[in-house]
């Protein structure tokens, strides 16, 4: 729309500059204080955090076991659409899923009736038991649209904490080209009714990380 050029922009900027000509007192804060204990034993920490935030974490040792683990999760879901990120590793994995019709991300977004989605992740964070995904992981809706989301990841993607994650992401121009990034921690939830925790609000009720250790 043409309106993105309008006089309000200049007015606001002028007012801000004028306002800031009177300095506010600076809170002298040491910036080197450590806020979190360093994360050691990162795999153990990741598993413990996942257990705490209702992420199911399955450790596997090779690609065959990974494929089996994914197949097992999908077997527990009702018949219907399985949506997968179109990535070579997931194409290979899908060869084991002959009984399910697969909607590949290269054919557009998941449908309203999608039962499960399978994607990769950009990184895993031990400190909070989170997965870090982007719009490159099957698109913007793939990682949130279905009742079950399966993430296929490997040990090398695990970073100790958020500080490390952001230090990497901030300098990764390719990552920053994505239109969406998301730190996902546990399955979708709400506490809006009497603060009672209910899993599976609008997003997945189950979040499963299949983590290959090689």
């Amino acid at each position, binding site marked *: 729309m043409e309106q993105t050029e309008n006089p309000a922009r200049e007015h*606001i900027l002028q007012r801000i500059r004028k306002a800031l000509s009177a300095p506010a007192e*600076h809170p002298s804060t040491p910036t080197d204080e450590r806020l979190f204990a360093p994360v050691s034993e990162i795999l153990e920490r990741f598993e413990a955090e996942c257990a705490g935030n209702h992420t199911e974490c399955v450790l596997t040792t090779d690609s065959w076991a990974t494929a089996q683990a994914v197949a097992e999760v999908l077997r527990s879901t009702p018949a219907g659409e399985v949506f997968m990120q179109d990535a070579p590793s997931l194409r290979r994995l899908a060869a084991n899923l002959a009984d399910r019709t697969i909607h590949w991300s290269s054919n557009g977004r998941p449908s309203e009736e999608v039962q499960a989605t399978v994607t990769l992740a950009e990184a895993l964070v031990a400190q909070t038991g989170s997965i870090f995904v982007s719009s490159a992981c099957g698109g913007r809706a793939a990682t949130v649209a279905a009742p079950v989301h399966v993430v296929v990841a490997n040990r090398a993607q695990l970073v100790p904490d958020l500080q490390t994650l952001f230090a990497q992401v901030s300098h990764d121009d390719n990552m920053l080209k994505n239109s969406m990034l998301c*730190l996902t921690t546990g399955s979708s939830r709400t506490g809006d009714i009497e603060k009672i925790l209910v899993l599976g609000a609008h997003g997945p009720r189950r979040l499963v990380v299949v983590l290959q250790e090689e």
Partner: protein
Amino acid sequence: MTTPAQEFLRSAATKSADLRHRQILRHSIDTYNTSAAQGQARFLDWQAARRRAQAIKWEAVNHLDKYLLQFEVRVKERGGHVFWAENGEQAQKYIVDLAAARNVRTVVKSKSMVAEEIDLTPALEHKGIKVWETDLGEFIVQLRDEPPYHIVTPAIHLSRKEIAALFKEKLGGIDTDDPEKLVAAARVALRRAFFSAEMGISGVNFLVADAGMIALTTNEGNGRLGTSLPRIHVALTGIEKVIPRLEDLAVLWPVLSTAGTGQAVTCYNTLVGGPRTKDEPDGPEEFHVVLLDNGRSELLADAEQRDVLHCIRCGACLNACPVYRSVGGHTYGTTYQGPIGSVLTPHLRGLHEFQHLSYASSLCGGCTEVCPVKIDLHHHLLHNRRNAVKAHQRSWKERIGFRLYRWTMLHPSWLALAGRLGRHAIRVTHALGLGGSALDPLRAWTKDRNPPPIPARSFRSLWKERRGAD
């Protein structure tokens, strides 16, 4: 015509006497307090985290122009639009016109306090556009046709029985007070809306300057769906939400979650920087960020209270406030409730009409103590009181009262006389059974309470006697 101050007093009197209301709020806030304490324990030093969060917001707010421009450049590089609005009408008009120009019939909205501030939903509905609130708490209060009760927990004032009755009436086909089933019913009701809406409107938790992305914190996943499925995404925010660097989120995401709900981090901490790229399979074709001033730059000019713009809308000060817990959210009659609302509203909507909120406080300082970005909230209430007095906006009764008070305090014998007369008057009215009546000098206090017994002798005479005995 009643003033906001009269309305506040009337509603406060009703709500604070409503024991059921008090019990519902207490239950929710006790649950929150337990989680928040657990969340804080995850930090080596929660106080250090507050100091860091404060430093980040200080840097951003005190260089607001620089960081907003940096943000704007990056969003435009990705093909997004940035619209600057001086007031609510401009922001509202931009969004309503955009919706009309793109033939939008349905909007899915995730939580945005700024949308409440500018009355966006009624304006869209006026144009015949259906607006779905998709945050569960917001969805509930929308069905009740009332504003949110709390900036983080909109339906904090409702029991599950009330929500069950509401769903039974408005959604149909459901008759249960099981929270799981109620959530499932809302999910079904909103699922279709997500997949059919042409426009998604979201709020913003942080505008990340160096990355040129908005950060959105939700638990339910509604913010993810609403910003992914419709073909247009509009993000609406105040100009003060900017932060300098992506790396700041390693501090601010855990701090916001801890203060807001007690979680280590919320489920979905999402960054959106533009419309879908050509390599992406889905996502909106258009991305608009609306930056709203609406009085914020004036607050910025007040160096003493500039830190009010540090607010990250976590709701911790509401939970900590004994006044909020007694009078509830709607009593404030403002978009932002609780201590932050009492400080902010006179700046956004006029010192004259909303100065009474500066007195909606016990000055206990609980709000200042819990604020994760260390806003000096209770002192700002005092600053607003002082400013109202300076601007001659207090009543003549109060001005004369204070003059008399000052004079009496400076003249010990008159103070003694006033005390003696006061004690007699109270004793006599109460002896005559007129306690709490219009003749009782302590009526403001005694109409709802029994006064303690009036001592036989004054402090002054006891002091004289005992000092004399030394």
